[in-house]
């Protein structure tokens, strides 16, 4: 009872505060400056999206166009797995999936569009990608922070969001398989609505260190229904599978 009333009082106090700050009675979040795009300016991809395909990065199944060295690494790791050795998936120790695995959407993605930025939140470990659409470029190559999700800039080409991502760490994954890549990996995406309820990401992965040609993968996502929600996922909560990157890798 006490909780109920204190909740009501807090709600009333917050409404009053919001009214004071905005000068008018709040009628929803649309009035918060900068939080809403001009209607119809660009397609609205906001919402919760669930992957349609499985959790292998390439739904079509083929391996990337590996050079000899990276193909050998992959084959060794697969043989080790076949022998029952534990070949670590980097996420086993709760490191983020990073790019490009982020876009597999193991668990749903949530897209938020605000002025100058498209934000994608992945439920898996609450990862966040910020795609800057304010016209900025990438930081200089020798200064850029090397991160799990990289540095993403986007621009609208008609109805398509074109995204370039650089500055990705060399140890991010594609999926739970032993596919690896070098630190020269970059990702280009063309993201568009096929219809109001289907989002498409055409993902082209380029890696001169590991691939002989760009690798194009197409993934699709279904708009979440009325009950769709993003759940919490804290991998460190109760992980009994602690192993660090580099451990449990197949012996060369």
């Amino acid at each position: 009872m006490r909780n109920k009333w204190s909740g009501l009082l807090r709600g009333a106090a917050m409404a009053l505060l919001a009214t004071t700050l905005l000068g008018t009675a709040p009628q929803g979040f649309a009035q918060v400056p900068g939080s809403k795009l001009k209607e119809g300016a660009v397609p609205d991809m906001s919402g919760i999206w669930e992957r349609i395909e499985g959790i292998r990065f390439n739904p079509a199944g083929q391996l990337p166009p590996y050079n000899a060295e990276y193909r050998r690494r992959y084959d060794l790791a697969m043989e080790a797995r076949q022998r029952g050795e534990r070949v670590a998936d980097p996420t086993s120790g709760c490191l983020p999936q990073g790019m490009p695995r982020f876009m597999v959407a193991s668990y749903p993605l949530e897209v938020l569009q605000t002025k100058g930025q498209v934000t994608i939140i992945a439920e898996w470990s609450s990862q966040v990608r910020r795609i800057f659409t304010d016209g900025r470029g990438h930081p200089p190559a020798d200064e850029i922070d090397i991160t799990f999700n990289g540095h993403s800039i986007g621009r609208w080409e008609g109805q398509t969001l074109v995204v370039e991502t650089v500055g990705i760490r060399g140890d991010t994954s594609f999926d739970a398989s032993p596919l690896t890549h070098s630190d020269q990996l970059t990702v280009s995406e063309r993201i568009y609505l096929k219809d109001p309820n289907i989002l498409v990401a055409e993902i082209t992965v380029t890696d001169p260190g590991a691939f002989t040609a760009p690798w194009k993968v197409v993934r699709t996502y279904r708009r979440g229904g009325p009950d769709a929600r993003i759940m919490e996922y804290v991998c460190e909560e109760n992980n009994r599978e602690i192993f660090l990157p580099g451990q449990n890798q197949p012996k060369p």
Partner: protein
Amino acid sequence: MTKKLLLSVLLAGIAFPVLAHHSFSMFDDKKEVVLKGEVKEFQWSNPHTWIQLNVTDASGKVVEWSIEGGSPNLVGRQGWKRNTFKPGDKVEITVHPMRDGQPGGSFMRAVLPDGRRLGGDQIPAAPAAAK
């Protein structure tokens, strides 16, 4: 009905290793062990749920098994709840056991105290009385 059950069992075997965030190679996916015991604890947690199950062996000794299940984000969307397993529940759980002989395994399917069967991605709706 039998077909449906078989399918759910098959799906159970496939769904967990594929969706897990780590390799399940420590479990022997060619072996099945049926455990009858009493739930000590159900950890509704990420990256995996865990059922701690006390199983009394033939000599009367109680052995605590650790049974790894899917993430709440996975099984929660298939109808599991935080209270699907409660301490004290007498249940039957089938697992793929650990290869190294430790008392642990990956969850395949279960029979709950009220007779409901849980198999991977399928759980029948709870009877009204259980709510």
